[in-house]
C-alpha cells in the first residue's frame, strides 16, 4: 500500500517522482520497460524550448516558460549538462515574414525574454550555414539544449535517493477502485494498492486513463524520424535552427546537441501504433529535404545513426494535467508532447503542488535535492585523471574509444541508484556506444563488465531489456561439469 503510484518512468513521471520525494509519503513508480527513459523521453529533439510557440494562455505555454526558467538551477542541482545555445526560427519566404512577427508577439505574451527579430544579414552573421534563401529570423536567446537521458535519469535517481521506489518490467494491466476506496493496480508483477495514481504513461496515457474513466481519451502517436551526425560536424550550426511552425508542429530542426553532435529532425507522421518507432526511408529522406530548406549543404554523409520517437499527441494539442473528473484521486499527466521535455520540471512542480494541497503533504526535513552524476573523464587534465585512477584503476581503461568512456564510468553507472543493467542503460548514463562506431568496438567489452559486475549470464545481457538479448548461446555449448 502506497500513497502515490506513478505510472511511467519517462521524463514526466520522473519529474513528478522527484517532486513527491520532497514529501513525507510513500511513492512508487511502475515502469513497463527495464529502465527509466525508454519511451518518448529517449527519442526527441533534446531541446529546452524558449516558449514562444505554444498558444498564449495555454498550459503548454505556461509550463514551457516555467520549465525553461527552472532548468539552470535544476541542471546544477542534478549535475547534468545544459546549455542555452539560443534558437532561431528561420524564414525563407519573403511573404512569410509576418509569421515571425506573430511568433514574436506570442512569445512576448507568453513571457519569453530577450526575443529579437533578425534581418537576413544579422541571421547569416550568427549562422553562416543558413540557407541562401533566408529572409529573416526570430532569435530566442533562452532556447537551450539538454541531454534527455541524463535529465530523466538524474530526476529518477534523485527521487530514488529520497525514498521513491521504482518497479521496472512492471506493466499495468488494469486499474480498479476497490471497496476499500483505494486504487488496485494489477500488473504483470502482482497487484499494487495506492491512494493516488499519477498517469504519466506517455503514448499509453490514453490506455491507462481509459481504465478508470468513462470520458475516453485518444492519443495519436506522431512519429518523428531523426538523424544524428558525427561530432566532426557538431559545430555546423551553433543555434537550434527551426523552420516556421505549421499545424503539425515545430518542423524539422537542425541543432547541436549538448554533447557536441548535430541532430536533424523530426518528421511528423501520425501512426496508430504505440510501439511504432521504426524509421522509414521516406521519413529519413524527408528529414534531409526539409532541413535543407533552412540550412545549406547539410553534411548528411556524416550520419552516425537514425532513430524515431513518438509524440503523445492529443487532438486538442494541450497538456492534460488534472484530476480525472469521474475518477477522484487519479491524476492524468497526458498529451505530453513537445515542449514536454522543456516543461518537465514544471510539470513535476505542478503535480507536486496539486497533491500537496489535496493530500495535505508535509515536507521532509532530510530531503536532498542534489545528486552527483557519473564522473565524466573526457576533458579532465592528466592530474585529475591520475587522481581518479589512483582511487580506482578502472578509470585508466578506456572501454568506448569513440566517446572516450572509461571502465570506471561504466562501473559507476552500474552501481549507482537505479543503475544500468543493459547496454542501452550503460549507454544513456555514460555515452559508451553513442559515438561514431555505434558500439561495434565497446559492446563486447561492456557485456563483459555487466556479466562480471551483476553476475548476468552473457545470454541474458540485453540491449534494452525484454527480448533484446545480444547473444543467443555459447558456441558448441557449455562444457559440462561432470
Amino acid at each position, binding site marked *: 500500500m502506497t500513497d502515490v503510484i506513478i505510472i511511467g518512468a519517462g521524463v514526466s513521471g520522473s519529474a513528478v517522482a522527484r517532486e513527491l520525494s520532497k514529501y513525507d509519503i510513500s511513492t512508487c513508480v511502475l515502469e513497463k520497460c527495464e529502465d527509466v527513459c525508454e519511451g518518448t523521453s529517449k527519442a526527441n529533439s533534446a531541446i529546452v524550448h524558449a516558449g514562444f510557440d505554444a498558444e498564449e494562455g495555454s498550459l503548454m505555454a505556461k509550463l514551457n516558460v516555467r520549465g525553461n526558467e527552472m532548468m539552470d538551477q535544476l541542471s546544477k542541482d542534478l549535475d547534468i549538462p545544459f546549455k542555452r545555445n539560443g534558437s532561431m526560427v528561420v524564414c525563407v519566404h519573403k511573404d512569410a515574414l509576418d509569421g515571425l512577427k506573430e511568433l514574436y508577439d506570442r512569445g512576448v505574451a507568453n513571457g519569453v525574454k530577450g526575443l529579437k527579430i533578425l534581418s537576413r544579414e544579422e541571421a547569416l552573421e550568427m549562422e553562416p550555414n543558413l540557407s541562401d534563401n533566408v529572409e529573416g529570423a526570430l532569435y530566442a536567446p533562452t532556447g537551450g539544449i539538454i541531454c534527455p537521458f541524463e535529465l530523466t535519469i538524474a530526476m529518477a535517481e534523485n527521487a530514488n535517493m529520497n525514498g521513491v521506489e521504482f518497479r521496472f518490467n512492471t506493466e499495468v494491466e488494469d486499474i480498479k477502485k476497490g471497496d476499500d476506496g483505494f486504487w488496485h493496480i494489477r500488473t504483470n508483477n502482482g497487484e499494487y494498492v495506492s491512494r493516488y495514481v499519477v498517469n504519466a504513461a506517455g503514448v499509453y496515457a490514453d490506455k491507462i486513463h481509459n481504465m478508470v474513466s468513462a470520458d475516453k481519451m485518444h492519443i495519436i502517436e506522431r512519429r518523428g524520424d531523426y538523424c544524428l551526425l558525427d561530432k566532426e560536424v557538431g559545430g555546423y550550426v551553433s543555434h537550434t535552427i527551426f523552420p516556421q511552425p505549421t499545424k503539425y508542429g515545430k518542423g524539422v530542426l537542425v541543432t547541436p546537441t549538448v554533447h557536441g553532435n548535430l541532430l536533424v529532425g523530426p518528421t511528423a507522421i501520425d501512426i496508430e501504433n504505440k510501439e511504432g*518507432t521504426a524509421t522509414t*526511408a521516406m521519413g*529519413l529522406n524527408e528529414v534531409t529535404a526539409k532541413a535543407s530548406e533552412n540550412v545549406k549543404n547539410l553534411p548528411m554523409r556524416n550520419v552516425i*545513426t*537514425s532513430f524515431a520517437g513518438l509524440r503523445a499527441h492529443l487532438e486538442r494539442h494541450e497538456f492534460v494535467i488534472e484530476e480525472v473528473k469521474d475518477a477522484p484521486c487519479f491524476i492524468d499527466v497526458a498529451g505530453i508532447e513537445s515542449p514536454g521535455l522543456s516543461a518537465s520540471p514544471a510539470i513535476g512542480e505542478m503535480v507536486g503542488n496539486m497533491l500537496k494541497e489535496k493530500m495535505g503533504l508535509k515536507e521532509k526535513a532530510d530531503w536532498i535535492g542534489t545528486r552527483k552524476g557519473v564522473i565524466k573523464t573526457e576533458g579532465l587534465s592528466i592530474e585529475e585523471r591520475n587522481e581518479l585512477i589512483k582511487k580506482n584503476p578502472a578509470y*585508466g581503461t*578506456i572501454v568506448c574509444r569513440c566517446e572516450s568512456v572509461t571502465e570506471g564510468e561504466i562501473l559507476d553507472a552500474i552501481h549507482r541508484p537505479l543503475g544500468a543493467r543493459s547496454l542501452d542503460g550503460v549507454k544513456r548514463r555514460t555515452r559508451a556506444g553513442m559515438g*561514431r562506431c*555505434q558500439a561495434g568496438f565497446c559492446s563486447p567489452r561492456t557485456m563483459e563488465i555487466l556479466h562480471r559486475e551483476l553476475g548476468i549470464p552473457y545470454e541474458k545481457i540485453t540491449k*534494452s531489456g525484454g527480448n533484446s538479448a545480444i547473444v543467443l548461446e555459447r558456441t558448441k555449448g557449455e562444457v559440462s561439469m561432470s
Partner: protein
Amino acid sequence: MKSVDIVIVGGGPAGLAAAVAAKEAGNDSILILERDNELGGILNQCIHNGFGLHTFKEELTGPEYAYRFIKQVLDLGIEYKLHTMVMDIAPDKTVTAMNREDGMFQIKAKAVILAMGCRERPRGALNIPGYRPAGIFSAGTAQRLVNIEGYMPGREVVILGSGDIGLIMARRMTLEGAKVKVVAELLPYSGGLKRNIVQCLDDYGIPLKLSHTVVDIEGKEHVTAVTIAEVGPDRKPIPGTEERYTCDTLLLSCGLIPENELSRSAGVKMSPVTSGPIVNESLETNIPGVFACGNVLHVHDLVDYVSEEAKRAGQNAVKYINDGCKDADTSDVIDIVATEGARYTVPTTINVDRMDDLLTVRFRVGDVYKNSFVSVYFDDERIMHNQKRIMAPGEMEQVILRKSQLQEHKGLKKITVKIEAE
C-alpha cells in the same frame, strides 16, 4: 617526461612489423602501445586461413600470422604496453596514453608510427530504415563474439555487404550451426575475393544477391525479419522487388574506415579518398617524423602488404632519427596523381633523393576493368603501360618506380597513374 625514440601506436600487424623492422634497422628505443589485452590486433579474431602466402610462402590463419610477428617482437625484446589507449598525439610528438597501472602518462618521441588500423562502417552510417533492435552486428563484432568470446549471436542470419569479413562470417556462422539465408550486396559486384565467394558462399549454397540492399528491419526488441530489395543503377531500391527473410541476426559488412581520430588531432593531413593520412615516399605524413602504415593509411586487401608497408615505415623512422630528425626537403617533390579509374595512390609525393631504389606505389581502381591498361605518365610522357586481365575495386593494385628512372627525368613535376582502355 619519459623519452623514447619511436612510439608505435597499435600492436596489430602494421605496428608489429614496423617495430621489428625498426629494431632490425638498429634502433633500440621502441615502444608499442596497444589498447587490447594482447598483441596481434584484428588478426586474433580472423581464425580462417589464407594469410601469409606472400610473406611466408604458406597459408596461415590470422592468429598464426600474428604470432610470427609477436614472437619476433618478444625475441627482439621490443618494449610494449597492453591495455593502453593512446589519448592524444601532439604535433611535437608528445604521446599521451593511459592504462590502469601507469595512469595517464606522456612520452616524448622522436618519431611516431601510426598503426591504428581501421573500423567497420556501422548500421547508422548506412541509413537503413526500420527498428533498432538487438541482433544487428557489424561482421567484425560478430566475429569477435564467435571466435574469441565463444558466443553465437543467433541462428538465422542475413548479411548485408559482401566484403571479405562478411563472406568469412557467412561460413563461420554456417559451420557453427546457423542458417545464413542470403548475402545482399549493394554494388553490382562483390568487393570480396573470388575464393571467398566460392568457398564461403557457394560451398554452402548461400545465395549472393548483387545490387540488393536492406530496406526494412523488423522487430522492436530483437530482429525478427529483414527485407531486401533490388537497387537500380542509382543504388535506390526498386519498388516491387522486396523479399522478406525471417531471421534473428543481421550482419553488416559494408566497408572499413581508417581510424584516424588521433592523426587528425595531431594535425596530420588526410586524403578524402582513403580517409587516411597523405604520405610521401617514406610513408611520412605532413608532420615530420610521423609515419603511417597499414589500414590506418589505406584499407588493404592482404595483410602481407600491410607487413611490407609497415616494414618500410619502421625503417624510414629509424632513418629519420639517424639523419638527425630533419624536416623533409619539400622543394624538389614530385606529385603522384591518380586519375581516370585510379582512385588514389599511396604515396602521393616523392622526393627522389630520399626514395629507395625501388618504390611500390599502391592504388585501387574505382570499378571493374577487364583487359585494361595501368598507365604511368611522367609529366605528359607515358612510360608504363601494363595490360591487366582484370582489375577490381576489392583488390589493391601497384606499380613499381625505379629511382634511376626518376633521376633520368630531370625536372619531372608530376607522375600520373591512370587506367586506359588501350
